């Protein structure tokens, strides 16, 4: 177990180094000169050159990366070209809203998705199943910005039940969380349904029924815990989807999280911030996967981490 954890962590670190390297290469290729950007429109060539030197932009590529890397492992993400603050601080300030939003969205999608999946599986091939599955199909087919704008239009503009956007109270989080979770709810309900259908065909479910367990007892006590397994593995992967989703959802709802930070940084080619956000997101994704794997043995005693 400890060996497993260490190995996975080493793997995770290697992946993150890979991610940071690839991103660095990509951003190196972006056709915009940070030094000129910083120097502004009144700058002389000398100023630009001096800035370039200070930022190490005139070093060979691999040296630039090495510098970045050495700072990175000391927890230093560098300074924003535009905002001038420490990237770490910027991200730290933006992370709580994003985490809050993601947590709310995960709750929303799990609650809706799993319930829908279980109900659909329990009513297999009946009208309820069909309806729920159509809903879930729409869920996986609707881009988040469409869902977001629609929710905004209906519940904020027309009905006025929720604020149009912003951050602060519990009411603010409802619509963004639903927009972010809508897609996931669609996925989870479909996964849960098929997983449930699989499980319901297993011998042990028949055993439970042979013991005289009722329909819902069979479903809730015997089938759901087993069906959850493949779904749990998905939650880790989900973090990746969320990281993409927040860019859109945060921009639709003006949610002050790292999605917006990333988007602003990309607009202005604020390379240290883009790097920072990518590395942080990748960390979240990698840790999410790791966590899912670590949780799995608690749900399925057959799984041994080696």
């Amino acid at each position: 177990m400890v060996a497993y954890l260490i190995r996975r962590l080493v793997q995770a670190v290697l992946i993150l180094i890979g991610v940071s390297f690839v991103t660095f290469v990509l951003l190196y290729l972006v056709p915009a000169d940070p030094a000129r950007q910083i120097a502004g429109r009144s700058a002389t060539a000398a100023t630009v050159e001096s800035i370039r030197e200070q930022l190490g932009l005139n070093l060979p590529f691999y040296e630039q990366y090495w510098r970045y890397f050495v700072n990175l492992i000391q927890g230093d993400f560098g300074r924003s070209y535009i905002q001038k603050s420490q990237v770490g601080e910027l991200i730290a300030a933006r992370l709580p809203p994003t985490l809050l939003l993601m947590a709310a969205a995960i709750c929303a999608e799990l609650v809706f998705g799993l319930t829908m999946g279980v109900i659909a599986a329990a009513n297999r091939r009946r009208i309820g199943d069909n309806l729920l599955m159509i809903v879930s199909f729409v869920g996986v087919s609707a881009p988040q910005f469409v869902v977001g704008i629609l929710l905004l239009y209906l519940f904020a503009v027309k009905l006025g039940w929720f604020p149009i956007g912003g951050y602060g109270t519990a009411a603010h989080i409802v619509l963004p969380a639903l927009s972010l979770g809508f897609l996931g709810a669609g996925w989870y309900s479909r996964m849960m349904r098929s997983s449930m259908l699989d499980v319901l065909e297993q011998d042990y479910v028949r055993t439970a029924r042979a013991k005289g367990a009722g329909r819902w007892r069979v479903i809730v006590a015997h089938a759901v815990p087993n069906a959850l397994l493949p779904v749990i593995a998905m939650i880790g992967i989900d973090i990746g989807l969320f990281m993409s989703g927040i860019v859109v959802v945060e921009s639709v709802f003006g949610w002050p999280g790292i999605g917006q930070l990333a988007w602003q940084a990309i607009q202005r080619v604020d390379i240290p911030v883009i790097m920072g956000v990518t590395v942080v997101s990748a960390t979240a994704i990698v840790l999410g996967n790791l966590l899912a794997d670590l949780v799995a043995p608690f749900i399925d005693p057959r799984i041994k981490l080696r």
Partner: protein
Amino acid sequence: ATVSWAEEPHMGGTMTVTYKDDVSTLDPAIGYDWQNWSMIKSLFDGLMDYRPGTTELVPDLAEGYEISGDGKTYTFTLRQGVKFHNGREMTADDVKYSLERVIDPKTQSPGAGFFGAIEGFEALNSGEADTLSGVEAVDDYTVRITLSRPDATFLHVMALNFAHVVPKEAVEEWGQDFGKHPVGTGAYSMEEWTLGQRVVFARNEDYYKEGVPRLDKIVFEVGQEPIVALLRLERGETDIAGDGIPPAKFLQVTKDPKYEGMIVEGDQLHTGYVTMNVAMKPFDDVRVRKAVNMAINKDRIVRIINGRAAPANQPLPPLMPGYAEDYEGIPYDPDGAKALLAEAGYGDGFETELFVANTDPQPRIAQAIQQDLAQIGIKAQIKALAQANVIAAGGEKDQAPMIWSGGMAWIADFPDPSNFYGPILGCGGAVPGGWNWSWYCNEELDKRAVAADAMVDTAKQDERIAEWRDIFVAIQEEAPWAPIFNEKRYTIRSKRLGGPDAIFVDPVHIPVHYDYVYIKEDQ
């Protein structure tokens, strides 16, 4: 213009201003976007300033100044007893330090270039010297600045944020984070900054100007979508929508009686234009450039942005001294444009690219231009990129044939025509990484420009302005740009805010002059 104070302002209260984007930095040497520009102005002061609501220069931290006959030496007498927010008195050494700091390449100030006229600039800026030989603290309250050439805009330069005075000890304490912990002499001091959420300014009790500021506190809330901000303003939760009226809401808001009396309209020092790269074919031909000018239906573009601008016919905006009132420009005339193109040998038109920033509404405006160009046979492919990428492309000689300036546009740094020339139309800006995206370089005009800026004599000011007018008319005759429109400003504020309209559309303080706004007593 003068501003009339109809009533005695009430003191106290808190005003809330909303913005979408984070406040980036409040370091006067570095902050250079329209959002932090006026915030910095309330935290710091410079030797010079403008009379509120106008473009009229007045001494600020300086009590007065003297200009030598050759226009090369400026001697400023400092106001006594002005204190930084940390309690220390501001002296001539601080002025010298602040100017050196801006020019020092380690500061990475985007404003260093403005001070090129000061003697010793080159040495300091290139890192050869550590001090600025042209600035001398004669005594605690006297600063003498020597220029290497006469510069009529120098007092404007001294009014720029970049020339604002900072205390050395605070800068050294915070280092690169000074922009997050600003300490100045301004009307307000920094009270709280929660990254990504809010910035709070508090009244500077020691402020040297009587009766200023009027408010106890200003709360800047960031991360607020313009539409949301408008709604909150309507509900009375906030006082100023920093990003203005969102275009989508503009028609509705201006017609809605609910907003009656909340909107102030004004002009700004802005021109939106299309650059044509004279270094690239076929824009090396003035006839082609003129044809483009003639082809664009500016009225329709103004209509597309719901009339929030006025069509432009020359580089300078109307508010700018030197604006040629009676100049007709190049009129809209598609048929004439076609003829001109044919004359230039492009009867069948040609293909080119139009670069534009990818934030709404810029791509839309570019498409309108694109359609107009198509009418005369020019097939312009739109390249909507992140603004940094457009700027980078403009700074290369052979990248961007045409650029729509919207979103990155030139709002003047100071209200002088010179500012509209040097970096964006003069030879100095036509270098790699420069901002002269049309790469237009007319040596003769450059000489005239230098000469005009050497006319420091106050008596010759009208002559100087007339010369500038002629320079810009001459440029427009060569048509390196197609000026499209001058954007207007609309500030929307809550009804409880008081003050003359002019400070709500202050030409240098956007969106409002924070120092002079007050909250009406009955609110």
